[in-house]
């Protein structure tokens, strides 16, 4: 049994049944899943969660399905890594990496949202799933959809990283590259979604899909010993992940699973596509659309659907925002790799670079606890750092060559 009461408009609070719909007919606001928290409070305890599966489905009572989950049995519950070397490098006392670069099966946090979206799509009776993607979602829908035996239509911009294209194609979906940027793909997909009866995970299934991101926040709280950190730095494209991490923390608080949430949530965006971060930093009322130009292609959304809600969550938490240049993104990727042995993609480079800035600027105090959200894997965006890495030392297969070329040059 699930605890979903229905869907509710985020703007005017009008309620709807839990179907494959996503906008309010009256005010065009987006719809959000509404739960029966009173009933959840009666059954949900720390112990119940701790004895659940080692996947995001341990939080099933707070996820929007009615029956049992059918997709993503191994997704989520990724490591929270205590990052001592990076902490020392950045000059903070207590630092953790929430590491979704190893999320099963496609190595990004999108495996969480897709596990929920496809379980819901099956429950609603769809046999075809689709998405508009900046890359990681394409990988996740293709892989989970293959496992679930669903037909798949995946739409991506034409200029994505090779590994994200290959890492979609291998699961044999219908992959369509669109001549345009992500915002163009998105508009096209809305028009397609209006015409064909498919489960578009980020369009008509979006209210359910987005709930999957809460589990990133749930895990952080549980893995820290049922508390939330003083600071959490989160990358943003549409802003959905950030909004849902905040919602996850507040749900745990409301249910008495943790004490009062005192986390400052910070929004990290790349220079060249930072509409949400700029609105936060300039305290502007409006979020201004941009045409993205950044190496962080997974974050290249110029018209962020959850932008206003992300700004509001950051402000409500007392957090702020930061912007990383292409160069800082590359440095961020390398810094995380050489200190913690974690190879993240460009989105993670943005997050590390912004965390570093916020610490330097004193917006994150040195004696406080910090979690950096690492949401994707570096093997998918190798183009971004290829030219910044030194090469290997090549030698002849002789001891002499080894000693001359390696020992001397590395001055052992």
């Amino acid at each position, binding site marked *: 049994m699930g605890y979903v009461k229905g869907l509710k408009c985020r*703007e005017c609070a009008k309620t709807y049944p839990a179907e494959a*719909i*996503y*906008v*309010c*007919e*009256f*005010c*065009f*606001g*987006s719809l959000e899943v509404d739960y029966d928290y009173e009933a959840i409070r009666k059954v949900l305890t720390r112990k119940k969660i701790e004895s659940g599966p080692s996947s995001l489905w341990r939080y099933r009572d707070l996820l929007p399905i009615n029956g049992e989950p059918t997709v993503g049995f191994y997704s989520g519950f990724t490591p929270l890594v205590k990052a001592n070397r990076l902490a020392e490098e950045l000059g903070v006392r207590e630092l953790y990496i929430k590491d979704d670069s190893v999320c099963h099966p496609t190595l990004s946090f*999108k495996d969480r949202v897709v596990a929920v979206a496809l379980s819901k799509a099956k429950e609603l009776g769809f046999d075809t799933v689709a*998405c*508009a*993607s*900046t890359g*990681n*979602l*394409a990988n996740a829908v293709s892989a989970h959809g293959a496992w679930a035996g669903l037909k798949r239509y995946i739409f991506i911009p034409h200029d994505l990283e090779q590994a994200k294209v290959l890492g979609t194609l291998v699961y044999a979906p219908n992959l369509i590259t669109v001549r345009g940027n*992500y*915002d*163009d793909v*998105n*508009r096209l*997909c*809305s*028009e397609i*979604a*209006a*015409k064909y009866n498919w489960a578009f*995970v*980020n*369009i008509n299934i*979006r209210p359910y*899909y*987005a709930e999957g991101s809460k589990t990133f926040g749930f895990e952080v709280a549980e893995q820290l010993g049922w508390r939330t950190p003083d600071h959490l730095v989160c990358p943003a*494209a*549409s*802003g*959905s992940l950030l909004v849902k991490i905040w919602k996850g923390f507040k749900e745990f608080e409301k249910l008495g699973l943790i004490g009062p949430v005192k986390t400052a949530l910070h929004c990290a965006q790349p220079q060249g596509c930072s509409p949400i971060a700029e609105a936060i930093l300039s305290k502007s009322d*409006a*979020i201004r*659309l941009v*045409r993205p130009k950044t190496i962080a292609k997974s974050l290249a*959304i110029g*018209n*962020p*659907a*959850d932008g*206003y809600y992300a700004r509001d969550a950051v402000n409500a938490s007392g957090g702020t925002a930061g912007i990383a240049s292409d160069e800082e993104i590359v440095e961020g990727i390398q810094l995380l790799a050489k200190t913690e042995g974690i190879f993240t993609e460009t989105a993670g480079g943005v997050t590390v670079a912004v965390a570093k800035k916020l610490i330097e600027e004193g917006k994150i105090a040195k004696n406080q606890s910090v979690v950096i959200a690492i949401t994707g894997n570096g093997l998918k965006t190798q183009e971004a750092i290829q030219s910044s890495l030194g090469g290997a030392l090549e030698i002849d297969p002789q001891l002499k060559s080894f000693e001359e070329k390696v020992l001397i040059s590395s001055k052992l």
Partner: protein
Amino acid sequence: MSIKVRIPTPLQKLTQDRAEVEANAKNVQDLIEQLNKSYPGIKDRICDENGSIRRFVNIFVNEEDFRFLKKEQTPLKDGDEVSIVPAIAGG
């Protein structure tokens, strides 16, 4: 000749289930007024109490976001294609 307007699913109840309608208007603002004459109530859905287009409604004129053009004052002419699209989640 006239302007072609693509109507999103949540508004199609007002357009007798039609996904595409035609209209004549000189700019985006005017288009909404004209649509409201043919399909009463549509303006209240697209615009807030002050008459401005709601922040999570996207309007595209020939594939270009109207916020990149002249917003409500974006001129329209015969043969233009307009798409009304709710905000969409990322990926």
